């Protein structure tokens, strides 16, 4: 896979479990040695000068990874020491991180006593303490409630606004929509790269019809492989059908369903979502939506 990311950009890695999202991030952080190829961070070869690269990056791993037996302030000061942030700059960055995490006046609280959202924002604070040019976030929002997730994304936006390049892996389609560009990764290969709207335009050849009915399984069976239908994928209790022209092909599909004695409550053309793109490009096992 080959790609570049720019300053101030949010690049999302999207793909099924085991596709190689985390592996890619770990190679970029110098945590894993690449079996081949070349990765540069801010113009520095990662495999050759991992230590130099590490001074320029921030990393948040899948698992929560601060010291639970240390307090908020102790964690921040530890990472400050490790990243070589000191003096006035340290004081400023500490204040920034504590503010960002919403932990003002709670510097002495043990991290073990914080709830998920706070821990996660503190981890982000530790990762950006040294003002890295690039921030790698490996599924940072897994296991966090939706409100905290939203707040976390606000922070990511403001960091990107300050010129930080953010590379983030995610399971969630709605999160992927927040990214400037998405790298769709499947089986260790870059399946597609582009902005969410670019991907929707280029990946879906045709238009999408949504059908809702009592027996989506029966409808799936009836529609799959019939003429004019390029693809059928279940989305909850409804189906997304890829056709060349939604308005033109709708009557034929209705006829087909009637022929199979299948009723529907709703049928209408819709705009493609990232999930449609995902199903199109990753294909294969459709029953397994990403992240499930």
């Amino acid at each position, binding site marked *: 896979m080959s790609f570049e990311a720019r300053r101030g950009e949010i690049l999302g890695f999207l793909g099924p479990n085991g596709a190689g999202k985390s592996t890619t991030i770990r190679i970029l*952080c*110098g*945590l*894993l*040695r690449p079996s081949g190829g070349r990765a540069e961070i801010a113009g520095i070869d990662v495999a050759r000068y991992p*230590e*130099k690269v*590490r*001074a320029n*990056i921030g*990393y*948040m*791993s899948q*698992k*929560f*990874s*601060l*010291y*639970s*037996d*240390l307090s908020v302030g*102790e964690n921040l*000061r*530890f*990472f*400050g*020491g*490790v*990243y*070589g942030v*000191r003096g006035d700059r340290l004081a400023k960055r500490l204040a920034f991180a504590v503010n960002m995490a919403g932990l003002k006046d709670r510097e002495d609280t043990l991290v073990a006593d914080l709830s998920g959202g706070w821990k996660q924002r503190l*981890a982000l604070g*530790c*990762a950006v303490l040294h003002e890295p040019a690039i921030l*790698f976030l490996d599924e940072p929002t897994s296991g966090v409630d939706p409100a905290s997730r939203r707040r976390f994304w606000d922070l990511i936006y403001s960091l990107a606004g300050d010129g930080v390049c953010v590379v983030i892996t995610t399971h969630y389609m709605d999160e992927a929509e927040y990214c400037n560009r998405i790298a769709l990764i499947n089986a260790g290969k870059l399946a597609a790269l582009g902005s969410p709207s670019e991907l929707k335009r280029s990946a879906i050849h045709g238009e999408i019809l949504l059908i809702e009915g009592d027996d989506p399984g029966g409808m799936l069976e009836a529609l799959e492989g019939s003429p004019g239908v390029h693809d059928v994928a279940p989305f909850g209790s409804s189906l997304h059908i890829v056709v060349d022209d939604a308005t033109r092909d709708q009557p034929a599909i209705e006829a087909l369903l009637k022929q199979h004695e299948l009723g529907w409550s709703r049928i209408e053309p819709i705009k493609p979502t990232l999930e449609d793109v995902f199903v199109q490009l990753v294909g294969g096992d459709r029953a397994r939506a990403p992240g499930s």
Partner: protein
Amino acid sequence: MNLRRVKAIAKKEIIQIWRDPRSLMVVLLMPLMQMALLGYGVNLDIEHVPICIFDREGSQQSESLMKAFQASVYFNIVETERDYDSLKRAIDGGRCKMAIVIPPDFSEYLATRNSARVQAILDATDDNTANIARGYAESVVETFSNNIEAKRLQSLGQQPPNTPAVAQYRVWFNEDLESRDFIIPGVVAIVLALVGAQLTSLTISREWERGTMEVLASTPVTSAELMIGKILPYFFVGMLDAAFCLAIAVFWFEAPFRGSAFTLLATTALFLIVVLGVGYFISASIRSQVGASQIALLVTMLPTTLLSGFAFPIDQMPPPVQAVTYLVHSRYYMTILKAIFLKGSGLGDLLAPIGALVVFALVVGVLATRAFRKGLG
């Protein structure tokens, strides 16, 4: 090498040691317990062997032989038997390690033929104790018969016989031949080897288990900085433990201390670095805390107790085993400690074992940094 990063890691480690009561317990109580267990438990002197006596005669002569056994510090007469059956039960039941049987014609033979037999029955399940008890018994009987001979000659108006050559013994370094004086410094070495490896065995595996290692590895910290930063706090803890153990050895167990405190501290510091390095290496190689702690115990316990010359003299071992002992770090510290305690040796006398420990420290350091790097890949 960035000292600020080393300092940040050391500081973090100190806070963590302080907040983890379990590791604090290990640090403070384990050495104390081991000193007590090994210091009191290991005693190679054989004294007060429990014996029984089956006196089949009950004469004045047999009584005085019994008294000779009673007077010896090596024996404790715990039972007197009336027949062979009860004697057998005493030995079978483990109440006695040895039975002395005085025949019914003991004094008669002594009077008429000037020679009588005494039977000693030994429980040789522990052959070492049995052998030593036999030796002591022989010497008790020999003294007894020498006395009789001397009395007999005296009553005949003759001089006691001359012994042409007599060896005069002068024992150096452990004048009282007390095994404890020799054991206690060794106990300190064992305790330090065990505790030291335990101290650092958890430090890296804990980071792996809690997932903090990934993030730590993504920072500019190098593996050498991490190692030094992590070992440093434990070095001071270890020195505290060492001072603790050495004080117990000198003041509680009253092991003779003839060397200089400086030599003792300098060599102890060196040994501690090796031991902490071993624990760190294990911790970096094995990612689970339980596994690392078990392995650390296994790798230090067996070689240190069996192959360091603690209780079993190395020069008595078969040559292949002797060769293996050169790979046991505590062997060198054991030599150093015993020499400082008993002989009062200085640094100059100990160049060889000190050199060996320096080599150990370097090798362990390189291995530990490399094991950690490999762990990341």
